[in-house]
C-alpha cells in the first residue's frame, strides 16, 4: 500500500506548487496596486500602509465604462456566434458537410496575423461611417470567435444520438422545431462551454480594439494597455485595472467551472 500513498503526496505537492505559481504574480499585482510609486521600487516590501491613489485614479479614469463596453462586445459577439454558429454547426454535423478538412478549415483563418486583417476591417468601418464605435470591434471579434464556437458546437451535435431527432420527426415535429425543442436542450451545457470560451477570447483581445475603437470607445484591454505610456508604465494603476478586469471573471468561473468541464466533456472533446 506504499505506492498509492506516494502518489497522493506527489499529487498534493504538484497542486500546491501550481497554486503558488499562479498566485505569486497575482499577489504581486495586488500588492502593487496599493503601493506608492516609491514603494513599487522595493520588491521585498510586503507589509506597508496601503495607498489608495492608484485605485482612485483608475476608477476615475473611466475603466468601469471600458469594462462595460468589453462586456457588451463580448456578449453580443458570443450571442451572434451561438445563434448563427449553432445553426450552421448543426447542419454541418447532421449532413456531414465537408469532412474533417472543412471542419478544421474553419479554424485556418485563425492563423492570419491580426496586423494584416485589421486594415480591411478599418476600411470597412470607414466606408460604413462606423469608425470609433463598437460595431467594427464586434465584427473583428466575430472573425475569430464565430469559427471557434462553430467548431466546438459541431462536436456537441455529433454527440447527440440521431434516434432522438428521428423520434421527434415521427411525432410530427418540423425539422426546425425538432432542432429547437429536441436537439438544442441536449447540447445546452456544450453551448454554455462554447459561450464562455468565446467570451474569454473576446474579453482578452487588445489588438483589434486598439486600432478599430480607441479613444472614447476603448474596450478594457485597450484601457489597460493605455497605462503603458511613453513616460513609463504606470504600474500601480495598471495593477488595479488588471484586478478590476480579472476578479469578476474569476468569481464567475468559481460558479461555472464545473459546468464548463461537464459541458466540454459532453461533446467537443469527442469529435
Amino acid at each position: 500500500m506504499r505506492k498509492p500513498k506516494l502518489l497522493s503526496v506527489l499529487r498534493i505537492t504538484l497542486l500546491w506548487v501550481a497554486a503558488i505559481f499562479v498566485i505569486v504574480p497575482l499577489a504581486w499585482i495586488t500588492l502593487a496596486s496599493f503601493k506608492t510609486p516609491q514603494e513599487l521600487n522595493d520588491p521585498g516590501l510586503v507589509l506597508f500602509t496601503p495607498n489608495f491613489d492608484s485605485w482612485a485614479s483608475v476608477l476615475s479614469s473611466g475603466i468601469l465604462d471600458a469594462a462595460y463596453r468589453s462586456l457588451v462586445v463580448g456578449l453580443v459577439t458570443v450571442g451572434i456566434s451561438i445563434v448563427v454558429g449553432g445553426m450552421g454547426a448543426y447542419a454541418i454535423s447532421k449532413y456531414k458537410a465537408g469532412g474533417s478538412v472543412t471542419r478544421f478549415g474553419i479554424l485556418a483563418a485563425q492563423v492570419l496575423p491580426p496586423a494584416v486583417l485589421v486594415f480591411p476591417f478599418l476600411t470597412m468601418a470607414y466606408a460604413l461611417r462606423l469608425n470609433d464605435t463598437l460595431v467594427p470591434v464586434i465584427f473583428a471579434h466575430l472573425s475569430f470567435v464565430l469559427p471557434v464556437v462553430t467548431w466546438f458546437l459541431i462536436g456537441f451535435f455529433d454527440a447527440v444520438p440521431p434516434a432522438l431527432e428521428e423520434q421527434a420527426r415521427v411525432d410530427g415535429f418540423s425539422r426546425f422545431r425538432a432542432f429547437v425543442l429536441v436537439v438544442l436542450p441536449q447540447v445546452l451545457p456544450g453551448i454554455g462551454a462554447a459561450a464562455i470560451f468565446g467570451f474569454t477570447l473576446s474579453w482578452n483581445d487588445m489588438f483589434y480594439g486598439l486600432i478599430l475603437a480607441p479613444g472614447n470607445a476603448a474596450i478594457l484591454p485597450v484601457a489597460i494597455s493605455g497605462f503603458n505610456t511613453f513616460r513609463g508604465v504606470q504600474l500601480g494603476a495598471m495593477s488595479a485595472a488588471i484586478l478590476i478586469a480579472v476578479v469578476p471573471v474569476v468569481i464567475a468561473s468559481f460558479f461555472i467551472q464545473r459546468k464548463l468541464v461537464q459541458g466540454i466533456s459532453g461533446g467537443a472533446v469527442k469529435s
Partner: protein
Amino acid sequence: MLHSKKSRKIIATVAVMSGLSLFTASCAGTGGPETPESSGLGDIPKDTKGTVRILMENVPDTDRITDLVANFNEEYPDVTVDIESLTFDQMRDKLVSSFQAPDPTYDLIVVDNPWMVDFAQAGFLEPLDDRIASTSDYDAGDFFEPLVDITKVDGTTYGVPFYNYALGYLYNADDLAAGSLSVPTTLEELVATSKSLTTSERSGIAMQPQRGYKIFEEWANWLFAAGGSIYDADGNPTLDTPEAKAALEAYIDAYKNAAPDNSLSWAFDEAFRSVSSGQSSSMISYNWNLPALNDPSGASGDLAGNFKLAPMPGGKQVLGSWSWAIPSNSSASDAAWAFASWVTSKEVDIDRVKEGGAAIRVSTLDDPGVLADGFGADYYEAVKQILSDAAPLSAGANGEEMIQAVGTELNEAVAGTKSVDEALAAAQAAVVKIQK
C-alpha cells in the same frame, strides 16, 4: 467536369471575392487632394469659425496644450478645439489609417521626427512656408535650429515644433560628489566615471540596451561623444567608422562593468526606476525627465532634488522632436493654423514652458519669468546647450525601419552574439539598403 457542382461554387466564391476587392481597391488611399494645397494664410481672422480635431499622444506635454485651450478660446471664441489623445502605438496606427479615410478625420496632427519625410513625400502634409512667412510677429527664427531642420523636407517646411525630446546626461549629484567625481566631458571619462560610481549596492549607469529604437537612441549619444556621426555631409551613413567602433566598444564596456546585472532588455522604464530608487547613479535620457526625478511626490522620494542634467560628453546629443502639422485632407486648415501658430507663439510658449512643457524657443529659456518660476535656471541653461547641438537618429525616408535595423545589430553586439565589427558592418549595410 466530375466536380462541376463544386467548381461552380468555387467560381461563385471567387467572383464575390474579386467584386469585394475591387470595391475595397477603390477605397484605398482616397484621402485628400493629389497635390497638397495651402491657402497660405498666416494671420487668421479672430472671427473664424470651425472645429479643429487634433490627434495627440497622451503625454504630459499634451496635457499642457489641453490646459491652454481655454486661453485660446478667449481670442478665437468660434473655434472649437477637440483633442483626442492616445498612447503612442494607438496614435500612430490611427494616424496612418486616417490618411486613408474617405472623410477628413483630423484637422491638425503632431508628427514624430522619423515619420516626417515619409508623410511629407506621400503628400499627407500641407506646406507651411507661406503661412509662417505671413504670420505677424511669429519669429520662426527663434526656434532651436535642430528642431526646425526636422520640419523641412527637400527645402519645404511641413511643420512647426511642438516639443523636443532631446537626450542628456542625468545624474545623481550626491553620488558624484561622494566619489569626488565631476560630470564626464569625454567618452573615456563617461566610461571611467560610470565604473567609479559602481559599488556593490549600486550601478554607475542604468542603460537601455533593448533591441530596436531604445539602444540606437542611447548609443548614438556615445557615437557623437566619440566624434562620430550617423550620416556624413552628403547624407551617406557612417556607422562602420573607427569612431563608431570606439563608441560601441565603450558602450559594451560600460554595460558589462557599470550597468545593472541582467539588464539587456531594459528600456526607459526600468532605467528610470533604477535611478529614481537610488540603485543606479546616472542615465542618458530625455532632458525633461529631470523635473520628474526631482519631484518629491514621485518615484524618487527622499532622493528628489539630488538629480541634475548636463549635455552629453562632447556636447552633442540625440534629438527627438514632435511637430505640429496640418494634414492635406484637413477640413479646417485655417483654424488649425490659428491654433498651431497661437500655441507656438512667443507669449504662449512662455506660459507652456513655465507649466513644464518641453522647450522649443530660445527666447523662452531666457525669459526672466521662466527662469524664476520654472524648474531652475541651471536646468534651462543645460536644456539650451543640449538643443543647440543635437541631431536626430534618422534622415530621409523609411526612418522607422532604419532605426529598427541599426538597433537590432547594436543589441546583437551587446548580447555578444555578433562581434563589434560584424554588427557595425551589418548596420551600415542595412541603412544603405533601407535608405538608398
